[in-house]
């Protein structure tokens, strides 16, 4: 862990200030940010926080532990293995997003980083952000008379 304070802040607009969450992250010497997340209430596991990643990736190891079933939704795989899955819950700090789209895959680069910096089980990418927004839109609609 880097000696300086490292935080991600997640602020949810329209919510009271108390709903801004501090999410500590670890800054690897490679320049990657790592945050912890629980997958289907299992973990926490370490993930690279990547705004440039259009998808969230979860390792097969966590997929197995968290009982993520990809069989029903795999269509065409990428890089030789893995497939699209729906994760029931992804919890970061005190916040949980449900039914998040992700890819179940053992990423070779993540494996290299894990070798030197401890186990890392994937990448939190765009779908991590998007799923939150999408879910909330649905909830907002329910409140419309």
């Amino acid at each position, binding site marked *: 862990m880097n000696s300086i304070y490292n935080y991600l802040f997640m602020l*949810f607009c329209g919510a009271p200030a108390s709903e801004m969450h501090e999410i500590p992250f670890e800054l690897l010497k490679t320049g990657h940010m790592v945050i912890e997340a629980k997958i289907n209430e299992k973990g926490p596991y370490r993930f690279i926080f990547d705004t440039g990643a259009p998808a969230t990736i979860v390792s097969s190891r966590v997929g197995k532990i968290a009982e993520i079933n990809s069989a029903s939704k795999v269509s065409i795989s990428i890089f030789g293995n893995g497939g699209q899955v729906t994760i029931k819950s992804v919890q970061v700090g005190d916040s949980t997003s449900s039914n998040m789209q992700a890819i179940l895959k053992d990423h070779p680069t993540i494996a290299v980083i894990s070798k030197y910096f401890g186990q890392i089980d994937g990448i939190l990418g765009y779908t991590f952000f998007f799923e939150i927004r999408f879910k909330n839109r649905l909830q907002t609609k329910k409140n419309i008379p």
Partner: protein
Amino acid sequence: MYLTTSLLVLIISLFQGPALGPEKVDETRVHFRVSDSNHILIRAKIQEKGPYFFILDTGAPVTFISEDAGKEIGLKADEKGWCRPKSILLEGGLEINDPKVRLETPFQLKGMNGMGLAGVELHGLIGFDILAKYIIHLDISKNHMVWIPNNYTPLKPVGAGGKSAPENLETLGTVMKSIGSLIKPKPRELVFIGNLGIIFETDQKKLLVKQALPDSASDKAGLQKGDLITTCQGAPVNNLKELHKAILGQKNTNILEMDISREGKKQSLKIPLNEK
């Protein structure tokens, strides 16, 4: 607790000292858009040329400018592949002076540009080395984010084991770039289209193959430079849009069948997409 509000703001903050709210000083609204491939894109001028499209990428430890854009701008890399443009001006008015960036085109960026999947030509990545110097308010549902300087200078990224960063670590973010190109734009209906690994000639209106990326599915299937793809899954394809449509219609197949013309002779290829 569950997330119950309509908008998400991410404030990415990296600084020395305890957590504080953002100050209303020196903040700049930087405009962005989300691409067809789910990338957060920022337009920027480099040394007053451009604009060029960059991906906002915390997963890339350093910032990249593509070789083509660098050539157009007149940038020259040193022997290790780095260059120092005088300035990068982000749309909205934030000027980054004298940044040290990689003058390099990750092959995934080449692939995405070849397929046109981002909807625009991509010219680089804004990586952690620049992003870490700002507190960034990012609300995906808006068209701009707010950048505030935080007086933090990130350490130079190193590779695993403490030596110079190996390419596969420096380009983690760029590895991820290809993932977006494999996903249909509608986020609730994500469908993989496989890692075909084809780069097309961009100055042609036909599907003329410029390169089958080494070890990609198309390479293994025998696709070669100069091949003209004429059909995909039985449907005639004359351009990328038609090819996308033919591929995205396949949700449960392991084989993509294509007819090609090679030196005027028709051939059929079967590309295995679900290698395990």
